[in-house]
């Protein structure tokens, strides 16, 4: 069991921390995936190769930053043809555009949830995107123990807005992105 952490609560509990804390992602305990609708069924895909850079300011959450780069050439689409379609020119065009990037521009917190506003670039097209973030700490840890956390980020991308409009009759426009990352303070 993990306890959900209120960002505001963390802010009060960790008022002594002034600067953003850099966190490293533990790949062994991190899943970066997405869900799309194929036909009428949800299919889960993954981005096994990624770079995620997280800095959290528990004193002022607006100073926090998130940088994400997802490698498209190793993206999987849930089954072999889904993977091939995903990487094809009609969707991610992985050969020409080897990464999806997200860079936060502002972070706002309230209750147990933060909103990460930023720019996402897919196929060379950049659009604004707001992600939702939640932080968890392991069961049995104290509120001040912020060394090892779990960061869950979710968001929805409309692939058509990036020209990734292949197989529109079969595959839905929305990609539900989920990053479930184990992060460790540096």
């Amino acid at each position, binding site marked *: 069991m993990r306890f959900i952490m209120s960002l505001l609560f963390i802010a009060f509990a960790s008022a002594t921390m002034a600067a953003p804390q850099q966190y490293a992602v533990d790949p062994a305990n991190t899943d970066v995936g997405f869900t799309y609708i*194929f*036909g*009428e*069924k949800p*299919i889960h895909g993954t981005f096994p190769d990624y770079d995620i850079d997280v800095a959290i300011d528990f004193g002022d959450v607006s100073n926090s930053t998130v940088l994400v780069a997802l490698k498209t050439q190793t993206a999987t689409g849930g*089954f*072999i*043809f889904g993977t*091939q*379609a995903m990487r*094809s*020119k*009609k969707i991610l065009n992985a050969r020409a555009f080897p990464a999806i990037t997200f860079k936060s521009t502002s972070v706002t917190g309230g209750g147990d949830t933060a909103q990460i506003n930023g720019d996402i670039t897919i196929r060379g097209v950049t659009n604004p995107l707001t992600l939702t973030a939640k932080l968890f700490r392991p069961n049995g840890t104290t509120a001040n123990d912020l060394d090892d956390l779990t960061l869950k980020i979710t968001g929805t991308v409309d692939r058509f807005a990036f020209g990734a409009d292949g197989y529109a*009759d*079969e595959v839905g426009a929305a990609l539900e992105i989920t990053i479930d990352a184990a992060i460790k303070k540096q």
Partner: protein
Amino acid sequence: MSLRNTTTRFGTIAKFLHWTIAVGLWAMFLFGNYISDLKIGPDNFYLIPRHKAFGILMLSLISIRILWRITNRPPTPLSSSAREHLIARTTHAALYLLMLATPLFGWIGASATGFSIPFFGLFNVPLLWGEDENIADLFFMFHGFAATTLIVLSILHLGAALYHHFILRDDTLRRITR
């Protein structure tokens, strides 16, 4: 019963290839039309690679048939006019050409989609073209046109066989059935 053709009869191998391919071509035509009208989803997606695998199988059988035809002379045509003989030769040539072209066009189109072409899960068939949506669309159009033309010609071929059997009352049809 001879495996090879004689001057009066088709051999067992020619008859087997003829009827297997005839049934296969019609089945593939109906199969292709069925999946082209289908709303594709996870439950029926497997039909597409299955169509491709059967297409490769058909192309293999057709290649064997053509080799057999080249190395094994068919029976001498039964009496018919020079004009009918020319029509028959032209139709047969067109049938052979379209039997090769139809799966080949499908293979090129399928290659250009960028998807792999598994042969019944045993191995992946080599791709003949790099990923190119325009080429895929073009060759799938050729594939559909060639398949439809092939089916029309096969109906004419069947009509000619029935004409020989019921009107001319010769052994042309029996040579390939018995």
